[in-house]
């Protein structure tokens, strides 16, 4: 699934993106979680991270796992510290008013699979 498609499906706002062409990156899987230790335990391949946690440690966790696309659910705002971190680390950040449950359901129904843990 391409970034443009994700944005359209979840009525997402692109907060930052290192790529000019939003059709460049293609994602096949996603993982939804607010617990970063669970991300560290279960994310075993490239995926989109869907979370409601807008703490800088969410981005640190993504950095450790080479996750470069993070969707923040529940209309959460991204602060400047997180924005700077994402730009430095070439991350794509998306915000949406949908809940984690809704984002997961919409993307899953449109072909973005879950990780096998």
């Amino acid at each position, binding site marked *: 699934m391409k970034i443009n498609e994700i944005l359209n499906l979840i009525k997402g706002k692109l907060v930052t993106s290192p790529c000019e062409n939003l059709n460049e990156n293609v994602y096949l899987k996603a993982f939804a979680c*607010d*617990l970063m230790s*669970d991300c*560290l*335990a279960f994310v075993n391949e490239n995926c989109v991270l869907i979370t409601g*946690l807008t703490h800088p440690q*969410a981005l*640190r966790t993504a*950095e*450790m796992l080479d996750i470069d696309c993070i969707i923040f659910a529940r209309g959460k705002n991204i602060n400047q510290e997180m924005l700077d971190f994402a730009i430095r680390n070439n991350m794509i950040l998306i915000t949406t008013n949908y809940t984690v449950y809704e984002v997961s359901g919409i993307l899953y129904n449109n072909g973005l699979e879950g990780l096998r843990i």
Partner: protein
Amino acid sequence: MNDVRFEFEVYSEDYVQGGSVSSDIKKYLHQIGINQKLIRKIVICSYEAEMNIIIHSLGGNLILEIKQDLILLISSDKGPGIKDITLALTAGYSTAGSKAREMGFGAGMGLPNMKKNSDLFEITSCPNGTNIKMSYYI
């Protein structure tokens, strides 16, 4: 390549800088050409260990040693130690407080994650501190 050794100070309750040591470790391992899968295993352990020092201890350090066919990651802190190591190694068991939970930690997966992602995992703990030695075969 000659053996190399790096020591990084990690401070208690330094939530702002949490993960920066592991980020440096990751970048260095990339630079010297360690394979991606192994880097991932090491940085998961390093990040969990770093956050454990910040959340649970009075401060400590992380040591990275790279030898001919082995990488060692050593986490060492100044206490107060783990009362029951067997319990702490049980997935889901956590003594983390609200501050750690705000950051998405405290799921009780830290030590089990470190054990799972290292080839050899050795832990000792007393009130003066906890030492964890993780080995990875290159």
